[in-house]
């Protein structure tokens, strides 16, 4: 059936604020779906409460509602607009749950709206574990033995029948929330009570733990004619027992024979066809017993899921985009392959490379959190890396993680005690893959490692190859000693120059120089869905060490945008929003826009966004080779958060032009001493502070500054390790802790402005003029990280004089820092106690880049600030060339969102270290709004959330 022409207007539901288990992959799917539908001339309306998304941008949809994801909001939209159909499969579980709720209330029926791309019965079937189990058995497939329990007694009975180890899974929760292994009977009662309490229906599923079974995931698409294709098969390196979101995953499957795979494929297709009647995406997980190859269906998600984004980036097949077309009636065979343009969308992508996805955790943000990985997802982001072999992809993934690793080990962060290493192999934590290599290096037999980890021996043997190569490498003394063929082999399996340098105890520069002398350089290969069988037209590349380079630089002038790497607390989707707008502005100015990023969840790594995408680690060695090939006019580092910014120094040293604000100015803003000197010169007040290199010095400074003081390492992100301390004892403990974790760092000690208000300004400066985009006032007083505070745009309680002072300081700073582009300034305001005396405004810090709040202001005021800023950065336009017309409507409140439920037993008090994972926007007409009053009345009760 071709397109259903009765659908002229579609509502897409977003996934709301970023939480663990539901991240920006749904911004990617939502924006793809929106674009795909608009291509068909369909009017797209979007609802999402997350302002930092591209999907809620005028470039994506026709009508945008930044409203809470509630039935009331849906009704408001349906009252205002004629909507023919709602597509609820692009916004994760949140969107689906909302759509189902509205369905049950008869909302869709009342307004004559069809639900497309989904079958509620299919959802019910897959969400209700007992129905699901029976259904899968009915169609002749296998599931793990399990029993449903609605009471404590039923749970006990189930356990008796199944035996230990077993799993308790609360029904209807997201991302495995509350699911727990029970290894022995003594733990069972408590786990069962917790599970029952967590389920909204007071129901748990007790099932056999398939610990150590291999785990595979298939991404499927089905159309209205029941044609089904498998887009991607992903093998989890971490076997069953660890949530797939927390597993290292590999595509294509590495250890699956054709006979086993075809059985799995047949079962997957059978399962999908048996699930109601809907056109769109579906994800199926299988567990495979390693010896017998027995196969069990673990889970089915009949919607676009977290792994769909990964599968799209891994194969080049845009699942959400095609799923949206299927939802409006198209059949797969009627659509073209988006990459080749002239072959069919009805086909199964084939890869001639290997991708590795690695999760990114942020445990350091949650002191007291159980690091052990299990059934509940704990990672906050992920990276993907592409290579021509598994090891290359694996090491590139390590280089992408943004946690100061230069590859899989060989970087002075190895563990050397066998007992510690073995303990970590058994008690799975975020560093298991690194410990696995440590174990091999320490001579632990493969068999023992397999026994402890159940990681398929294939992966263990591959990693062992690295250990062998390192043993050989360390026999050399200098880079010149390494034989060329061996050098090449090292690079082919992903070693960075830094790792080679560390192993030989020589300088990275020397390795790089020698490598270049030998002509061992990266070549670039295309991701084309078809292993080069057909000519592809999509400029999506990765680097490797191979013979032929396929990335042909054009004759056009080019600008490179550096992305922000994996999502983590303090650096999330906001920066991806900034990058995407930067790319759009660059394209508009006629340059070729080139994106470098490694985060598969993002819109910036959608190959339709930039003119050319390099899916690569945001890591100097990789970037360098891209820059040498492309020879861009310059690189934009202001948009990708701290990740991109911290590379500025390297660019500066290597003579690579930085677009906009110069490195010197950025450095000045980042260097606490120099920045304070500047503030003093400009007569701008700032908190007293000092820099310490040891604990004694820290105590001396703290006493000079006066307690309470704010202590933190210099150069970190999102207030990592930042504390407010009130005496010498606490200070000493914390300073020692910082030095333990970050030995090379210095410690900053700031006067803490107790009971001060906080506010921040985002502005654009073109070198001459300064435009203040917005002033946000934090509801909570100083002491809480700006990312965790609720903030109001514009200010609501600050005096006219304080605001004027802040603007004056911002202008002074922007001009003297010679900002070309974006600047964010954070203030603390001490209200005056005596009438007539002005409020005192302190500058706390200045960030010469896009900030977390930039997208928020752009959304709230409906001004494309990031595009304007990018054009200014490029020097193509001055601020006066724009007619900036903010459209404020009342107040916009930024509300942080946390994922604490993923970390039971964690201290949930807020402080100077950021802990929120996402944010929502809420518009209010005036300050009498009950939502605001509630927030404001609790402003001082910030200690717990």
């Amino acid at each position, binding site marked *: 059936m071709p397109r259903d022409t009765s659908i002229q207007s579609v509502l897409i539901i977003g996934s709301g604020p970023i939480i663990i288990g539901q991240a920006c992959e749904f911004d990617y799917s939502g924006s793809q779906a929106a674009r795909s539908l608009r291509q068909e001339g369909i009017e797209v309306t979007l609802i999402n409460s997350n302002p930092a998304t591209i999907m809620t941008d005028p470039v994506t949809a026709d009508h945008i509602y930044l409203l809470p994801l509630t039935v009331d909001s849906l009704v408001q939209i349906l009252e205002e607009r004629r909507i023919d159909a709602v597509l609820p499969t692009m916004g994760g579980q949140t969107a689906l749950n909302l759509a189902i709720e509205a369905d049950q209330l008869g909302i869709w029926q009342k307004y004559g709206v069809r639900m497309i791309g989904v079958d509620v019965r299919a959802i019910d079937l897959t969400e209700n574990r007992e129905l699901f189990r029976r259904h899968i058995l009915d169609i002749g497939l296998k599931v793990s033995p399990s029993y449903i329990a609605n009471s404590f007694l039923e749970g006990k009975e189930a356990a008796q029948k199944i035996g230990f180890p077993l799993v308790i899974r609360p029904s209807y929760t997201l991302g495995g929330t509350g699911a727990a292994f029970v290894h022995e009977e003594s733990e069972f009662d408590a786990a069962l009570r917790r599970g029952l309490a967590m389920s909204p229906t007071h129901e748990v599923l007790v099932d056999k733990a398939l610990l150590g079974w291999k785990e595979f995931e298939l991404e499927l698409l089905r159309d209205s004619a029941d044609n089904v294709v498998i887009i991607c098969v992903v093998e989890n390196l971490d076997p069953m027992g660890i949530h797939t979101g927390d597993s290292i995953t590999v595509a294509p*499957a590495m250890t699956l*024979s054709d006979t086993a*795979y075809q059985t799995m494929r047949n079962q997957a297709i059978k399962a999908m066809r048996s699930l109601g009647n809907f056109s769109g995406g579906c994800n199926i997980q299988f567990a495979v017993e390693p010896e017998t190859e027995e196969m069990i269906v673990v889970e089915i998600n009949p919607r676009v899921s977290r792994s769909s984004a990964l599968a799209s980036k891994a194969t080049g097949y845009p699942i959400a985009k095609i799923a949206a077309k299927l939802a409006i009636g198209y059949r797969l065979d009627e659509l073209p392959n988006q990459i080749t343009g002239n072959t069919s969308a009805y086909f199964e992508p084939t890869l001639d490379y290997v991708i590795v996805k690695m999760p990114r955790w942020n445990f350091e943000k949650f002191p007291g959190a159980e690091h052990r990985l299990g059934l509940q997802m704990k990672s906050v982001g992920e990276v993907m890396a592409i290579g021509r072999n598994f090891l290359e992809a694996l090491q590139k993934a390590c280089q992408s993680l943004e946690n100061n690793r230069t590859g899989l080990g060989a970087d002075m962060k190895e563990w050397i005690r066998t007992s510690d290493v073995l303990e970590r192999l058994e008690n799975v934590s975020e560093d298991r893959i690194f410990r696995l290599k440590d174990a091999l290096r320490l001579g632990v037999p493969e068999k023992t490692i397999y026994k402890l980890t159940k990681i398929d021996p294939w992966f263990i043997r591959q990693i062992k190859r690295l250990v062998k190569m390192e043993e050989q490498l360390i026999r050399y003394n200098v880079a010149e000693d390494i034989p060329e063929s*061996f050098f090449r*082999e090292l690079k082919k399996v992903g070693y960075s120059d830094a790792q080679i340098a560390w192993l030989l105890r020589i300088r990275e520069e020397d390795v790089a120089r020698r490598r270049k002398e030998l002509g061992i350089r990266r070549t670039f290969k295309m991701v084309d869905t078809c292993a*080069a069988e057909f000519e592809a037209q999509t400029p999506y590349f990765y680097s490797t060490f191979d013979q032929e380079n396929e990335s042909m630089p054009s004759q056009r002038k080019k600008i490179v945008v550096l992305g922000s790497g994996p999502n983590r607390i303090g650096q999330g989707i906001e920066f991806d929003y900034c990058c995407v707008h930067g790319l759009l502005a660059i394209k508009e100015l006629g340059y070729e826009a080139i994106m470098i990023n490694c985060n598969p969840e993002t819109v910036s790594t959608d190959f339709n966004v930039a003119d050319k995408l390099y899916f690569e680690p945001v890591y100097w060695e990789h970037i360098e080779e891209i820059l040498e090939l492309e020879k861009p006019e310059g690189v934009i580092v202001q948009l990708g958060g701290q990740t991109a910014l911290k590379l500025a120094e390297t660019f500066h040293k290597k003579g690579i032009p930085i677009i906009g604000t110069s490195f010197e100015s950025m450095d000045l803003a980042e260097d606490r001493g120099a920045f304070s000197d500047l503030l003093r010169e400009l007569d701008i007040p700032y908190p007293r502070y000092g820099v310490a290199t040891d604990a004694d010095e820290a105590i001396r400074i703290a006493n000079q500054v006066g307690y309470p003081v704010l202590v933190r390492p210099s150069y970190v992100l999102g207030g990592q390790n930042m504390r407010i301390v009130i005496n010498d004892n606490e200070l000493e403990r914390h300073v020692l802790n910082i030095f333990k974790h970050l030995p090379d760092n210095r410690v900053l000690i700031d006067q803490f402005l107790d009971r001060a208000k906080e506010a921040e300004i985002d502005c654009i400066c073109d070198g001459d003029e300064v435009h203040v985009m917005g002033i946000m006032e934090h509801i909570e007083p100083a002491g809480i990280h700006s990312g965790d505070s609720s903030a109001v745009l514009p200010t609501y309680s600050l005096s006219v004089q304080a605001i004027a002072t802040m603007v004056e300081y911002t202008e002074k700073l922007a001009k003297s820092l010679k900002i070309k582009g974006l600047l964010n300034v954070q203030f603390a305001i001490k209200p005056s106690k005596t009438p007539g005396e002005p409020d005192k405004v302190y500058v706390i810090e200045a960030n010469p880049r896009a900030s977390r709040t930039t997208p928020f202001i752009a959304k709230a005021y409906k001004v494309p600030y990031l595009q304007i800023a990018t054009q200014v950065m490029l020097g193509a336009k001055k601020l006066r060339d724009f007619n900036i017309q903010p459209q404020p409507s009342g107040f916009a409140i930024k509300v942080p969102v946390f994922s604490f439920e993923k970390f039971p037993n964690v201290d949930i008090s807020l402080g100077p270290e950021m802990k929120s994972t996402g944010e929502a926007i809420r518009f209010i007409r005036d300050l009498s709004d009950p939502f605001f009053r509630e927030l404001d009345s609790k402003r001082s009760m910030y200690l717990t959330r």
Partner: protein
Amino acid sequence: MQESTYEPAILLLEDGTVFHGKAAGAIGTTTGEICFNTGMTGYQEIFTDPSYYGQLLVTTNAHIGNYGIKASEVESDRMKIAGLICKNFTVPYSRHAADQSIQEYFEAEGMVAISEVDTRAIVRHIRHRGAMNAIISSEILDVEALHQRLADVPSMEGLELASAVSTREPYFVGQPDAPFRVAVYDYGVKRNILQCLTERGCYLQVFPAQTPLDTVKTWNPHGYFLSNGPGDPASMHYAIQTAKAILAENAPLFGICLGHQLLALALDIPTHKMHHGHRGINHPVKNLLTGRCEITSQNHGFGVSKDAIAAAADRVEVTHINLNDGSIEGLRVRGKRAFSVQYHPEASPGPHDARYLFDDFVSLMQN
């Protein structure tokens, strides 16, 4: 130092392009027509598929050998490819049921391979320049000498290879008391085709390629099967005559791949050498009779002429087309009980989407 120093090998193409890589499998020299397969699973089935006889196979999947070699997962008695060209010849393997590593297998069969070459560059080259002959050597590292050896290799076009891989003696497969007797003409038949037929109640007698129809008829088969196989179908005059004779009998007839091309030739529809063929397990085919689509396993370097078949619409009906390039994937003969497909419904390797065709064949014999 086993990991770093390795035996070199060379791949030389007919047009003079040279690739340097690492020796894998047996040490030696081998020649054939270069072709590529894009499947991500099923290397062992491909190596042993007789249709690859005389061909140097490029596998595009990044790793080959990961799950080892399992004696039972073969499509014929031994490897049929002439040589292997791959990126990562991966010797350490993991599969409980596997019997040996890929290196052991290649050594045992004396199969020459080259790895660590830019397989993607080779595929792109073939995509632009078309299929051509090539030589792999891990013993002669002098390109000039390889050129001379390569010059002696005949072109695939016009080459009759089926006789070389066909069985020498007829043999039986399945249960003698099964409901249907099917005569299989073996031009290089894959074991899984036989399996798919026996599973559906067929008792098979597999005949050498050049067996006269009259000899076969004495067995009184209910239906005839024309198998897949290597080489240029247009050179197989004996087989085309057989196909014509079977059509004249109006007996149920099913052809796969080469068998499909032979049926077309028997209907006076010419075949042609394709630029670089279809080889992989992800080829999209649409069944024009049902409107349903299927993902198919393919391996062919020759195809049936689209124009000629259109001109013969009164005699032949196109039943399946390729969704990528519109090429002919299946046909049936009007007024006869004969049909054929270009792809491999038996899969092995590849998706099982098209196995219904064997049921269709059985239905023809039932009626």
